[in-house]
């Protein structure tokens, strides 16, 4: 694991005093966070703490009011989402965000095209782009949807759509992946399988995920960042975060107690 060996890692994503205000309200209040390459980081915190806003700032959906976002050593704040994506960062969405009228295969192939250099071309046939088709097919097998190749995305079950969402997100080969509540709305068994899937498909990449399910968080993350009212109040390994007094008080205590109570 990368986290066990911090001396060898480089910084994939770094946030420096990141701030965002909507009107007079400051939602993100000076976040500093550095994520080493290959690390899996879970961002937790109560509702309205600013977790999704943080993702929106990193991925370029919103521009930060001040501060820097540094991706693989390059400043990316203020860039458009597609420019950030081209620099190697990809994200999924809390509310399923796929191409409903395209088939599973087409959804994934769309995710692949830019990174394979096909850009805006209209002088080649998609069906002749063997590398893109091959990659889309691999992705389809990775997210276990190869039996639904030609099913329109809107006709998939919810869990399948979530898997497709992840598939599109990782399709472009970005090295930093942001997953916004990937297991939201799933049953326990689906969640367990899904976490396994996420681990598998993001192997070797840097992963940031927003998650509410503590079982998921402790099963998946190398490090946990606790966000409360727009600030990171703790950022450490799961065990240390669990033991952190401040986190206990602010947020975690009750949840962890519930989780363990349910487990025994």
């Amino acid at each position, binding site marked *: 694991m990368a986290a066990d060996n911090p001396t060898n890692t480089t910084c994939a994503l770094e946030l420096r005093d990141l701030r965002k205000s909507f009107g007079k309200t400051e939602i993100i209040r000076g976040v500093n966070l550095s994520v080493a390459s290959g690390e899996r980081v879970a961002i937790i915190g109560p509702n309205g703490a600013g977790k999704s806003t943080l993702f929106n700032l990193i991925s370029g959906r919103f521009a930060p009011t001040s501060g820097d976002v540094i991706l693989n050593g390059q400043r990316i704040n203020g860039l458009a989402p*597609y420019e950030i*994506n081209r620099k190697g960062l990809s994200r999924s969405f809390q509310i399923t965000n*796929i191409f409903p009228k395209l088939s599973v295969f087409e959804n994934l192939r*769309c995710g692949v*095209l*830019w990174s394979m250099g096909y850009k*805006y*071309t209209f002088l080649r*046939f998609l069906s002749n782009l063997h590398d893109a088709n091959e990659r889309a097919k691999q992705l389809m097998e990775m997210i276990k949807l190869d039996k639904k190749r030609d099913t329109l995305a809107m006709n998939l079950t919810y869990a399948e759509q979530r898997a497709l969402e992840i598939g599109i*997100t990782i399709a472009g080969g970005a090295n930093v992946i942001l997953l916004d509540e990937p297991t939201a709305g799933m049953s326990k068994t689906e969640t367990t399988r899904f976490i396994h899937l996420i681990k598998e498909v993001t192997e070797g990449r840097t992963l940031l995920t927003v998650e509410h399910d503590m079982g998921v968080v402790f099963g998946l993350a190398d490090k946990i960042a606790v966000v409360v009212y727009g600030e990171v109040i703790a950022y450490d390994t799961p065990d240390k975060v669990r033991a952190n007094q401040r986190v206990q008080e602010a947020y975690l205590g009750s949840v962890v107690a519930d989780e363990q109570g349910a487990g025994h």
Partner: protein
Amino acid sequence: MNSTTTTTVASSATSHYRFKPWNVGRLIIWTLFAVMLIVAPMLFRSSLALTMLSQIGYLIIICLSYNILLGQGGMLSFGHAVYTGLGSFIAIHAMNMATKGSVHIPLVLIPLVGGLAGAFFAILLGFVTTKKSGTTFAMITLGIGELVASMALMFPEFFGGEGGITTDRVYGKAFFGISFGPAIQVYYLIAAYCFVCTAAMFAFTGTPLGRILNAVRDNPERVEFIGYNTQRVRYFAFIIAGFFAGIGGGLATINFEIITGADSLSVIRSGGYLLFTFLGGATFFFGPIIGAVLLVLASVLLSELSKAWLLYLGLVFLFMVMYAPGGIASLIMMNLRLAKYGKLRQLWSSYLALGGTALVGVMGAACMIEMTYHLQLNAALGPELTFLGATLNAAGFTSWFGAIFVMVTGFGLFELCRRQFLRQWSTIQEEIEHEIKRGEAL
């Protein structure tokens, strides 16, 4: 991803995803299309028919190019006539210059001149329009449409003012006896362009840009996060649509040898392209082809049949938007799907009943419309009119009562049939879904 899955992927991949552009079904369809284009003027020999066929030919190109925007890109443009019209004007000036001998462009290349002009103006104006999508896009195209239409009146030197510009398509030396004087030769020029452009636009749907355009239509926000600039995607598609629109405009010029700004650039013309592309069906590639045929049939034949043809057209459009938003193409495809699962036969009687009752209702309504029009427009000719062989008295009680009776009975029965049909339809759809599920499970 571990190594075992990689190897299985590599071994099974080649067999599944091999490209088959010339599969048999597609080859047959394209051959049929070509044969139809070649044979059509031999079947319909009158000069009116030939004019109509020529119009259908270039309108197919125009409606298909419009559908790159509407159906494939989700861009509701109210200004497509700008690109067909400006293509026409540049083409006509090129023809007149060629006649004078200042440039050498053979007539067969004039449509390409129109196409390049269409693309040029799409590059120029599309840069503004495609910045936005949705409602804003529609509003900007409407604005630009009005702008260009009013500009046509401001620059009579270029646009010819009220009278327009005329030309003569017979210039240069005849090539193997082909002077493009006779209408039949022009038809075959149009048919050739129609085939090539249709094939090219179909090919476009299978390219990376074409597919990403669909993605932009469905979910532009997500496209931004897979590396594509949605404005750029819309812009490029807009230019391609402009190019083919210009080709259509150039062919129209050759066909009519006259272009007027008030007609060719008007927003009404743009609305016509929109309306018939929609009627034909924007969700399928071939829908606009049906739309183009309908456009010519309506504007040439229906307008002969009745003065109220625009009213009928409006009603048909209203009906389609409400009950069949996918247009005629989607109706065809839905029934083909039924046929594929062997369910079409069950619906024959329902279709007959629906058609019969609708016809009765429409007849009643049409009698009333015709009588109203007669009273308004032809009052001097007396109250009597003949409609479909029957003599109606527009001022008499019996004719009105009869018409109302027929209409109410027709539509009443139609509604009963429709309810029965809907039940039948949903049962059949469920059966098909069931069969598909079972097929997947196997």
